[in-house]
């Protein structure tokens, strides 16, 4: 996308590295719990503390989840992958190296589709408004611990919590295909949704289950080619808002910088900057003339991982229900409006599954989505639960919606039955309807009722005959007073028919 600021056009180029914490019970190389929020250093053992003599043992579940992610991201799953040590010193890294994957990552290539109005850098787009963000790779690695810097009374004090040390991460590296802060946010959001849908991660941003680093620079069209600003890596963006704001800030900072010094890649060192949410600025952390030397080499304590074709095939079924699949089901198969479908999709997989269950039990799709968006979501949001905890079985709610569709009861009586079912879900639809005294009123009975009402209200007849057919609405209330089961729609239709026949 070409932006214009101070009348010098440039293109924003962004690549994201997303760290996804995998939803395993235990850490990547030991049996310590990955539970978030425990007292510091209570979920540790000789292995994740890096005590002398301790050795790692691979958690196969993490590999399964990585394969699932790779399938969903259209990546190649490596048949042979291994573990490498990334050597560096830091107090939250007790072994002095991080066990990661260097040259043979478990997933290679692939892409993630996002909603965007800007054209793709490459790759054919099947649908308008979609943009394919290509992936370089995704690899497994262990997380480090947390350093908590506590500065008070002029003394810097750092405390280390190693509960997180050894937690499995999948690092997903994109190509620099993102061209705006909004796109980067959209990419991260769609990535999170995908990981949560497939049970790969809990996607909890507050707990750091999804963190991103952004590589950002600007491309200026110049005579004879492109002038690119030095790439800046912004570290540890752990909210959608932070990603968007940090990149926005960085784009304008780089533009100002370029307008001032005109330096391009190679003329200034690569910078690592940190995002300060309070000041709304990125801050210089370090400048490096060349990339750090981590002295990667294969970890001699672990054996390579062989992934068979059968294993990949077996994982396919677990990677089917993606947000894309949900959209396709709702929009393409059941003709639900895009924007309505998206609300359900964003709400979560179980919400979509509940809606699809309603439809499969016979509820008309349009009525199902309407009830989902109003009644079901209101309950779920009020109670802050997901649809698996919704009290009314899909089959019951579907029956109710069918009953309404067939005119057995009207919408307002339907809502009463819905409320009744929420209170006593085991009651069953028919019993709920009966307990409210709802019985379908026979058409003859309605006709008798309407004849009487018209007779009592001749002014309505006049108005309708004068062309104001909406006037019959005035009779609905009276009809309900006489028989509360009278279907308002049927009352109106019958009155109009009777007036026409007069």
């Amino acid at each position, binding site marked *: 996308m070409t932006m214009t600021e101070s009348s010098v056009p440039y293109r924003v180029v962004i690549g994201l590295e997303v760290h996804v914490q995998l939803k395993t019970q235990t850490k990547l190389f030991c049996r310590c719990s990955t539970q978030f929020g425990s007292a510091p250093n209570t979920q540790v053992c*000789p292995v994740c503390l890096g005590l*002398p*003599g301790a*050795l790692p043992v691979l958690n196969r579940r993490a590999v399964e989840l990585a394969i699932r992610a790779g399938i969903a991201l259209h990546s190649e799953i490596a048949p042979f992958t291994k573990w490498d040590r990334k050597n560096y*010193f830091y*107090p939250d890294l007790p*072994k002095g190296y991080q066990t990661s994957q260097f040259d043979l990552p478990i997933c290679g290539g692939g892409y993630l589709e996002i909603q965007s109005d800007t054209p793709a850098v490459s790759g054919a787009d099947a649908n308008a408004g979609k943009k394919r963000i290509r992936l370089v790779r995704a690899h497994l690695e262990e997380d480090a611990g947390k350093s908590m810097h506590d500065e008070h009374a002029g003394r810097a004090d750092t405390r280390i919590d190693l509960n997180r040390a050894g937690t499995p991460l999948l690092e997903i590296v994109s190509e620099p295909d993102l061209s705006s802060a909004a796109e980067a946010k959209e990419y991260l959001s769609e990535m999170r949704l995908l990981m949560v849908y497939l049970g790969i991660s809990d996607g909890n941003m507050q707990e750091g289950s999804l963190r991103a680093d952004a590589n950002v620079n600007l491309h200026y069209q110049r005579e004879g080619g492109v002038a690119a600003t030095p790439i800046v890596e912004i570290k540890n963006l752990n909210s959608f808002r932070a990603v968007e704001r940090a990149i926005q800030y960085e784009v304008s900072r780089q533009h100002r910088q370029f307008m001032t010094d005109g330096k391009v890649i190679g003329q200034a060192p690569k910078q690592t900057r940190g995002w300060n949410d309070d000041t709304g600025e990125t801050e210089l952390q370090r400048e490096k003339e060349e990339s750090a*030397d981590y002295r990667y080499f294969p970890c001699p304590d672990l054996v390579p991982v062989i992934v068979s074709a059968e294993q990949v095939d077996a994982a396919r079924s677990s990677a089917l229900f993606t947000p894309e699949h949900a959209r396709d089901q709702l929009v393409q198969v059941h003709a639900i409006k895009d924007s309505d479908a998206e609300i359900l999709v964003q709400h979560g997989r179980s919400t979509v599954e509940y809606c699809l269950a309603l439809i499969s039990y016979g509820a008309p799709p349009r009525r199902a989505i309407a009830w989902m968006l109003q009644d079901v979501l209101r309950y779920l949001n009020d109670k802050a639960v997901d649809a698996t905890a919704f009290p009314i079985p899909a089959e019951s709610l579907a029956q109710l919606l069918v009953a309404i569709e067939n005119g057995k009861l009207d919408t307002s009586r339907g809502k009463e039955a819905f409320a009744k079912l929420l209170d006593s879900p085991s009651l069953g639809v028919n019993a709920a309807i009966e307990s409210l005294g709802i019985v379908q009123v026979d058409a003859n009975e309605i006709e008798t009722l309407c004849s009487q009402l018209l007779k009592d209200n001749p002014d309505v007849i006049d108005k309708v005959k004068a062309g104001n057919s909406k006037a019959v609405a005035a009779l609905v209330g009276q009809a309900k007073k006489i028989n509360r089961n009278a279907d308002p729609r049927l009352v109106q239709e019958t009155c109009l028919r009777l007036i026409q026949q007069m």
Partner: protein
Amino acid sequence: MKAPLLSLNEISQQLARREISSRDVVQQCLDRIESTNTRVNAYVHLRADAAIETAKSVDERRAAGEKLAPLAGIPIGIKDVLCCTEMPTTCGSKILENYRSPFDSSIVSSLKRDGAIILGKTNLDEFAMGGSTETSIFGPSRNPWAYDRTCGGSSGGSAAVVAAGYSPGAIGTDTGGSIRQPAAFCGVCGLKPTYGRVSRYGLVAYGSSLDQAGPFGSTVADIALLLQSIAGHDSRDSTSLNIAVPDFVEPLNAKAQGMTIGVIREHLDGKGLDPEIHSALLAAIDVYKSLGVRIVDVSLPHTKYSISTYYIIAPCEASSNLSRFDGAHYGYRAPKQTADKSSDASASALVQMYSDSRSQGFGAEVRRRIMLGTYALSSGYYNKYYLKALQVRRMIRQDYDNAFETVDALLGPTTPTPAFRLGEKVNDPVQMYLEDLFTVGANLAGIPAMSIPIGTSSESKLPLGMQLQSAPLTEAKLITLGHAYQKAVGFPPTLPTASDL
């Protein structure tokens, strides 16, 4: 003349027959330790009282008629690089001077399971890096056969405790010859098992792809009993082989007749080989011939690259393995420097702490190997050194694979010379590294290898060692051949001739 030493097997049988008590055995060991360990310096941590208590309880169990494993009630020394909760685990280094492991190594657990008594920790070269047990913070160990000589290394203490009768068995570790070379120097048997045969869990890593723990004993039969206890799959070590453990005692009775031994020409004809070791090997070959063993010549053409290959791979792994000793979490942390004393004014306090703790906590040899490894793994050198070394390692392994297609075992010297003098090589790292010439091949190839005594030098009366190597997982063949030799020559375990032993 002192009484001859009892072998571990003899002690085990006498215990089983209740002719002696475990308590007496331990006491006898403690008495010997008491009288000479201050000079030999082989044990660096001792559980004297606790060992007596354990011995008493084993005696009680035996008296109660309980069926006990052959090692029950027998005191064993373990190298101070194996974690054991009852004693410090220092690796002979200042950086772990006061470190105590919260868990037992799998080897210690196995020995305890079989009722063996962990008598103490034995001396070693710092972090098992060395060939003379001179780089330990506890000072050098001395060879029980001649106090001015080295007992070898890095498992020098483990070899010395067996030679000196401080315990009838010991466990060492072998990354490039650290069990076999001290065994040869001290006149005892030492076995490096197949890589993966014995769990590395709780063995403080030096070169993870090469490290393997193994037993010391005065006879091959003793080695068999100890190996039986410590071998086996361990789910806590991913490189541990998930293969059933065979009976290692049974091959003692197997016939050597009809087996084939390949004599490694490169090792036997090498220029640096001591002539007395050479003639002792020829005599051993004659013994095998007389037993009906077929002797053939074998060539390991890539053997000449083994030292350089080893001294790339081991330091590379070590440089990473030893990163955890950084003063941040446990072990030695250098006292805070004042700004003017700081060697690098620009370094952050954290980097200064790392640098000082590691510079002060590690000895010269360990620092040398960390630097070697760090250099060889650095960007731009990785392909030139580390990757090349891995390629050569494969060729060395291929040499062995080819050889084992036609022979049951390979025969050669364990060391080029008998035990050298203390201080002789400690300042000449290259000379020290050449000590490993005949032994590193087995580590690079991951195969089992054993050193057994084949006599003493005529003048200085120093032990001479023979090395037998065999295909992966065929320790049984080494046991059969080693035992056959010892039976044929009537090998008696004897106390060394050092003046006061």
